[in-house]
Every structure is written in structure tokens, then in C-alpha cells.
């Protein structure tokens, strides 16, 4: 490759990396800059540095004087983990059925999953509200777990089915002859071989729950049952916005997700089935 080509390609990459990172850097600058105005300056370097916004966010308390921030973090963590577990269980089992079994309604089911994906989430908000209300699950994390895990299922099923399809059938047939039941074939062969796809879908489910705002804002009314995105939004008022706390909160919220990406990235590498069958 010629030197100019290298320079051009790298220039291109650096430009888009900067485009992606710049807004994030501005938020980080705001989170450590005193005051609540969002300065128009484009420099990502803060003029003065303070951690007051962070301590205010972390130290916030509810009406009864109990720590509010940690309560909300706990809500979000429990909600996201529960969504991931429930969603993964439902998605992996149904994806396996869609991939390996032939049954009436199989094509239809797969198509419906795609169709459902085409509606914006706000459209199903009102029916969901009515359903949760009748079930008495408004203002509860259980209700949200159900909503999130079911909305994440279509994407997870398609991703997992696509991956399961690439696992050679013969490996399962060998296990079947070796004495495995259908469930053992799934649990001891297919699941361990699908780590990359499972990591992707788990991450997706987790982030769906972690970042979702509209449904949470609609279904949750008590401050103590808020999730982190709802908490953030409440710093943005009608008349004044606490930009400092908002930015600090935003940075805090994204840390776990970044950590999760970092932990899962080695599982995101595909090619685990290498060696099982002739490549």
C-alpha cells in the first residue's frame, strides 16, 4: 500500500472517531465544570475542574432522607439483569426451536417477529399501560422486566437463530447417537458453542433495559422505583435544567455499560466451532 493511501485511510478513520467521541467529551467537560450552564465553547478541555456535580448526584436523598442514587442504581441493575436472564432464556429456547425443528407456523412466527420490530415502541405504550394496570404491575420492576424482555426477544431470536443455523447438524446428531436428549443437545452442545451470539444478545438485552426511558417514565411514578434514565431526565426541568448533574449522571450511567463491553469483548469473537467439523 502506498504511503498516501495509508495517510488517507487513517485520516478518514481519525476524523470519524473524533466525530463520534467529541459529543461525549463535551458531556464529560460539562460534568466537571462548575455551574449549570452549558457553555457554547467547543473546547473539550474544562477551564475549571470540580467534582461537585458527581457528589451531588451520588449523594442525593429521597423524601425520607434515604440515599436515592444508590437505590436507583440498584433498580436499574436488578431490572437489567432480570431482563437479560428472562429474555435470554426465552430467546435461546425459541431460537433453537426455530432453527432445528419444523413445525406449523414456523415461517409465520419468524415473519411476525420482524413485523413487530417495525412498529415504534411508543405505539404499544398505551396498550402496555392498560395491560400492566390490569395486572397490577404498574410502578413495579416486574412489569418492566416483562415488557423489556418481550420487546428484546425478536432481535435476540433472529440473532441466535442465525448463529444456531451455522452449527453443523452432525454435531448434534453425534450427540443424539451418543445418548443425549433434545435438551442435553441444546444445553451441552449448542449453548456452549454459541457464546459469541449469546454475548451479543445478552448485551443487547441488558442495554435495552439499562437505557430505556420512555416506557420507564410512563410506567414508573414513585421516585424510589425510578431507573437511571428516568432520574437523568428529571434533572431537565421545564424552566431550568441542571446540566451539571445531568452530565455527571450521564457519565456515571455509561460506566457499567462500558465495563460490560470490555468484559464481553473476548466472547464476541466468533469462530468457536472451529475444529469440530472439517472446515
Amino acid at each position, binding site marked *: 500500500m502506498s504511503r498516501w493511501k495509508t495517510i488517507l485511510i487513517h485520516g478518514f478513520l481519525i476524523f470519524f472517531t473524533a466525530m463520534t467521541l467529541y459529543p461525549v467529551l463535551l458531556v464529560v467537560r460539562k460534568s466537571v465544570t462548575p455551574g449549570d450552564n452549558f457553555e457554547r465553547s467547543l473546547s473539550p478541555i474544562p477551564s475549571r475542574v470540580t467534582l461537585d456535580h458527581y457528589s451531588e448526584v451520588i449523594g442525593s436523598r429521597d423524601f425520607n432522607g434515604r440515599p436515592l442514587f444508590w437505590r436507583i442504581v440498584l433498580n436499574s441493575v436488578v431490572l437489567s439483569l432480570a431482563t437479560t436472564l428472562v429474555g435470554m432464556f426465552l430467546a435461546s429456547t425459541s431460537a433453537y426451536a426455530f432453527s432445528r425443528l419444523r413445525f406449523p407456523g414456523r415461517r409465520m412466527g419468524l415473519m411476525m417477529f420482524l413485523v413487530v420490530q417495525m412498529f415504534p415502541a411508543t405505539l404499544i405504550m398505551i396498550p402496555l399501560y392498560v395491560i400492566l394496570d390490569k395486572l397490577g404491575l404498574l410502578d413495579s420492576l416486574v412489569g418492566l422486566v416483562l415488557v423489556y424482555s418481550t420487546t428484546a426477544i425478536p432481535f435476540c431470536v433472529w440473532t441466535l437463530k442465525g448463529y444456531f443455523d451455522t452449527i*453443523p447438524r*452432525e*454435531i448434534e*446428531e*453425534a*450427540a*443424539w*447417537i*451418543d*445418548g*443425549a*436428549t433434545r435438551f*442435553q443437545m441444546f444445553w451441552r*452442545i449448542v449453548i*456452549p*458453542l454459541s457464546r459469541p451470539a449469546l454475548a451479543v444478545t445478552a448485551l443487547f438485552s441488558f442495554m435495552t433495559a439499562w437505557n430505556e426511558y420512555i416506557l420507564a417514565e410512563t410506567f414508573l411514578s414513585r421516585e424510589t422505583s425510578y431507573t437511571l434514565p428516568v432520574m437523568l431526565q428529571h434533572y431537565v426541568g421545564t424552566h431550568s435544567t441542571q446540566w451539571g448533574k445531568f452530565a455527571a449522571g450521564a457519565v456515571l450511567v455509561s460506566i457499567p455499560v462500558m465495563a460490560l463491553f470490555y468484559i464481553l469483548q473476548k466472547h464476541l469473537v466468533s469462530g*468457536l*466451532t*472451529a*475444529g*469440530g*467439523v*472439517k472446515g
Partner: protein
Amino acid sequence: MASVEFRNVVKRYSDHTVISKLNLFIPDGKFVVLVGPSGCGKSTTLRMIAGLEDITEGDLFIGERRVNDVLPRDRDIAMVFQNYALYPHMTVRDNLSFGLRLRRIPPSEIEKRVADAAEMLGLQEYLDRRPSQLSGGQRQRVAMGRALVRRPQVFLFDEPLSNLDAKLRGEMRREIARLHHRLQTTMVYVTHDQVEAMTLADIMVVMEKGRIRQVGNPMDVYSQPADAFTAAFIGSPTINLLPVEVRTGEVERITTIEGQGFSLQVTARFMHYQGDGLMGIRPGDVRLSSDTGNLQGRIDVMEPLGHRVLYTVDTPAGSVLCELDASEARWKPGDAVHVVFPMELVHLFEADGDQKSLLLEGGTI
């Protein structure tokens, strides 16, 4: 150990018939090779024994037991797949022991069986490796070991050597032969490679388009093919098949074979028949001569194969392949030669339908 029997077995996918009325008895302890071109139904037949394919009609027995509705895991069989189908996330040791662990065999017994199989197949040093760290030949050994530790009633092999290179294929072929000799367990082996079929089989089953063409000892199938298809499929280089006209008298049993540019008379070997036929003669049975023969021709191609030389001879009857000892091969491309068909080595088939052999019952070649 057990026999395997197909009784009027039919396999259909919606309206497409893959296997039509299969009747086959595989005696206990025999090495049976199903051989045929791709799409002939040999793999489907094997997979029906394994229970991986349903049987549309008819009955399948393993031993005394009708197994049509028995799950693969309950059939007491083991299978070696073409693409090995190892468990990629497990070590060789775990691959070998997986089936035994599922069947709750005591750990001490598992250890012993794995050690035995590893020793028999030379896998001791690789027990803690993953399949991805093994070569093709080693993976195939693991696949065989996985079958071996189970000590099944029937071993099934689905083209196990077709992914290996030629040298390794020969080695593994001999290893499988040794294994059968040692275990004396029923083995059913599918291949499209006639060398594997010839060398391994006690009983060879030639299949085409979902039907059995011929069953028999490999040498018998080679020397007395039941039809033109079998004659052409078994044997390398391929048998010469020349269109001829046949007249066999009912009384004196003399067969006159008239081809393009040649004519032969054969005594008392073929059944009564008048009409179009195909004359078959193996390249190794054809002789060449500079001065006299059945058919005149000219050398088209000469292929030296080491101790043998393969000639393609252009004749009025078409191309004739002739395989000679290198010491007899004194012709060059372009030379005029006479082709000799030794009449005691000639095969004769009907030209139409299944192209059945016209050889008399008890007749020999």
C-alpha cells in the same frame, strides 16, 4: 453384536422417493459397504439405520428388535461422520467420554475405555487437546474412538475418509480393516470410493437411484457384475462398454457378438437372447497386437502409470481403454494396432432397461 435387516423399506420426502423397496440383510459381524454415486441413497440408508431419518414404509430390524420407532440414542449403534462432527468445545478426552457420561457409566470404567480406545488409535498424547488443535487424520481417529468406547452393536461409517488426503486415506483404511478384524462387530460403511469398497467389504452393496443393483462378495461383484451400471462403477480404469448386436442360439448355445468393425463368437456362457446389447471388457483384459486381432485401431493417448501403461485406442467401435504391463507397452500415439478381446473375458449386457447381465447362472468369467 447384531444383524441389521431392511424389509421393504421405502423413504420418501413429500412426493420424492429416495429409497424404493429396499430389502437387505446384513449378517452379524460382517463388514458391509454401501457403494454408489452421489445421490444413490446410500447415506440415507445408513442414516435410517442410525435413526436420523424416519422410515416412510417397511420395517427395519437391528437384531431381533424392530427399530422403526426407536430413538437413535436407544438403538445401541455408533456413527462416524464424514465431517467428524466432534464437539469443538471439549477436549479429546471429553469427546470420547461424552456418550459414556450421558449413559452414567461408572467413572473408573469410563477411564478404562477411554484409555483403551486412545491406545488402540494412538491418541494418548492428544487427550487434553481440543479438536481444533488436531490434524484431519487425528480428528478422524477421535471420531472413531468416540464410536469405539461405546462398544455398540453396530458401527456406522458415513464416508469417513473422504476429507483426508490420499496417503492418509490408505492408512486409515487399513486401520479400519484392522479394527473390524479385532472387534468382529457388524460395520456398515458408506462410500463412493470403489477402492475402499473393494478392500474393506465382506459384502458389497452397489446402489443406484435408491435401488440395490447388486449384493455380493467384492471379487464376485467385480468379476460377475449383474448389470452394466455395476460393471462400470466397480473397477478402475472403467470397463469398456461397446454397443453390439447379440444372437444366442437356443440349442447350441453359441453367442455371436457383432460390433462396429468386429465380430466374436462365445460358447455356452450367455443366456438365450437376440437383439441389441452392450459388450463389456475390462481395460486390463484387453490385449494389443501389431499384426492380428478382433478390431483395428490407432493409439490416441498413452498414459504411463509406472508399472502399468494405459492406452486409449481409437477404433470404429469407439474409444477402447487398454491397460498393459509397462514391459508390453511398445506402441506410441499414432501407431496402428489390432485390439484383441479374449473371448473368455467378455461381459455381455442387455442394451435396454436395467441393462442386466446376460451371463448364465453358474457361468464364470
